[in-house]
């Protein structure tokens, strides 16, 4: 068995960090994407900026540990502390280059489910919901799904689309339906 000196989450963070180009405006979110932004900022993308949906913009990672994007170290030294709709305004204008979303289930066309497993009226599992995920999926120029690769999470077709990727997979589905962002997945 091959030995590696890194863990799967570390690999995910490194791969996510590589998606961030220098100077980009990145809709970060929580957990692993926060680390990915930190890695990118410390290596190849020192001018990348981070947007947080509760109403923050930063040009460097927070100095202290973050349990959530709203923890005080993320606010100290921010470029902008504001209301959510102002941050969403930038994204609605197509100014967010990249976003990150986690999910419970993703399908072959990149659609994510973070809402309901099973029937919506009486679900088998009630997941927390969209949060800002659907907004990122619909309005950012490109986005990355960051989740554990478990068989049950990688499905042919999600039963509920919280955050749309490429819909039914037909050519031009995003444009036809009025979504922003790339016409084709990169990988």
């Amino acid at each position: 068995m091959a030995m590696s000196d890194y863990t799967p989450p570390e690999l995910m963070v490194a791969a996510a960090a590589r998606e961030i180009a220098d100077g980009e405006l990145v809709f970060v979110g929580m957990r692993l994407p926060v680390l990915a932004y930190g890695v990118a900022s410390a290596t190849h993308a020192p001018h990348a900026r981070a947007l947080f949906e509760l109403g923050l913009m930063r040009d460097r990672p927070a100095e202290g540990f973050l349990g959530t994007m709203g923890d005080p170290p993320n606010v100290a030294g921010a470029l902008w502390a504001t209301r959510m709709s102002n941050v969403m305004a930038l994204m609605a204008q197509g100014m967010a280059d990249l976003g990150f979303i986690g999910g419970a289930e993703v399908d072959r066309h990149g659609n994510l489910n973070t809402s309901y497993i099973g029937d919506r009226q009486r679900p088998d599992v009630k997941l927390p919901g969209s949060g800002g995920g659907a907004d990122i999926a619909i309005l950012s120029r490109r986005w990355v799904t960051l989740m554990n690769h478990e068989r049950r999470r990688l499905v042919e077709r999600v039963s509920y689309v919280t955050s749309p990727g490429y819909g039914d997979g037909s050519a031009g589905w995003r444009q036809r339906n009025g979504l922003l962002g790339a016409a084709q997945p990169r990988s």
Partner: protein
Amino acid sequence: MREAIARFAPDGATIALGTCLEPAIPFAAGHELIRQGRRDLTLVGPISDTLFDQLIGAGCVERVVAAWVGNVSEGLGHAYRRAAEKGEPRPIEIHDHSNFSIALALWAAAWNAPFIPTRTLLGSDVPRGNPGLQVEEGWVRVLPVKPDVTILHVQRADAGGRAHAWGPLGITEEAGLAAERVILSCEELVDAEVTLSDPNRILLPDAKVAAVVHEPGGSHPAPLQGYWRRDHAAHREYAGRSRTAEGFAGWLREWVLDVPDRQAYLARVDPALRISRHRYSAPVDYGDE
């Protein structure tokens, strides 16, 4: 707090809470709602961390109008799951939103507009379960959501209802403007000359504010810029104990039902969570002549 909740947040009310998302969540007010046994509430919010989960588990809630309900640092909301999956302790109705669409729904109510058109939620199933989101050709119609009462925890306020809040505001302004009335709880109760010295920082018109409650630590375990760190351990403890209905009931007794008020609650909170490294902004000059 007891009086403010008793007078202004009755059974059946539509209440916006947790409008800054993760910070400044009015947990003290939420716990008072639980202690007073409120029923049939409609909760409105974006991401309220564990507060919505606690109110749902305590049986206070009939309907949830929100973008996300769970435990931000720990994952799923177990009480939310029990209510949605098994109808325990009672069934709830869920009106799904995204963060952007709940903000727009509150702006629509604040502006007294019939709806706001947006591109967000195109191609998503989120509008399917929500009569307040109507999909048109190329845009989505977001109908107004009007809270009866919006409850906020802020850094400081005066007795006349002028609040100063800083840090990211999330959907606080639209939730306050849209609401019939606002309950403010504040870390510091200050003289009006403090708030009026910086009118740009006043959060909302005082006419909206029905009550001001001096409630230090009112956001714990959520953070408050300049005052309190987030209590990650408390969120972890809640996640573990709320996994079963019995565990949740024990947690609720210990941290809410058997606690008479916020002062008694704070005596059990780690004092190291208080922020000690202060970073003051430069004063501004409102000079006029």
